[in-house]
């Protein structure tokens, strides 16, 4: 029962990404295989050098760091999104696999969630 959680909005401006991540953490806690896919504006979750202290939120980088520890299998990232936001795959805050989201990718997952 492999699950893919898609994050397509940047962090901090709204809450949907955090609640998507909570779903991923829960799956991992219940030993269900789960991967995260960052698409479009969502690639900004992986930007290095974030510091949300002054806007009084938790910096999401630390949460993503916990994701690997808690058993989230893969961080997939949309390569088109990376280039749209001027980000290099080797300068991200986490180890990622660059993908081109399409049918070949999605068919590997039984459940796909996009909040």
């Amino acid at each position, binding site marked *: 029962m492999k699950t893919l959680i*898609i994050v397509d909005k940047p962090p901090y401006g709204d809450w949907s990404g955090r609640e998507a991540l909570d779903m991923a953490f829960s799956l991992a806690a219940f030993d269900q295989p789960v991967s995260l896919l960052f698409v479009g504006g969502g690639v900004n979750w992986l930007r290095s050098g974030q510091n949300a202290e002054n806007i009084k939120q938790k910096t999401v980088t630390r949460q993503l760091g916990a994701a690997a520890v808690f058993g989230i299998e893969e961080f997939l990232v949309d390569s088109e999104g990376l280039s749209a936001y001027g980000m290099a795959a080797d300068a991200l805050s986490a180890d990622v696999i660059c993908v081109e989201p399409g049918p070949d990718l999605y*068919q590997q997952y039984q459940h*796909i969630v*996009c909040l």
Partner: protein
Amino acid sequence: MPLTQTGTELMPVLHVLNKSPNHPRFGYCLAALADNDALILIENAVFGLGSANRFRCRVYALQDDVKARGLPSPSAGEAIELVDLPGWVTLTATYSRIVHW
């Protein structure tokens, strides 16, 4: 039909899309469609009926949402089928994998 890594055959996907055509997710959904998938447009996504030639698979649209918004019914040449709520239910029973965009 493509095989997964584990060797089991996967059913095609029913994609359910409720975003307007100018929403980024409309494009992500389009990019995810395989030839043997199906797509149903609901809520604000029915504004995308006019761009149906961009879809590479079977396309349905929820009649109530089309009617609410005063959109013209698709012509016979457009290969879009209007469905009512029971029709949508039937689609979800037919496709074992469903993705909501």
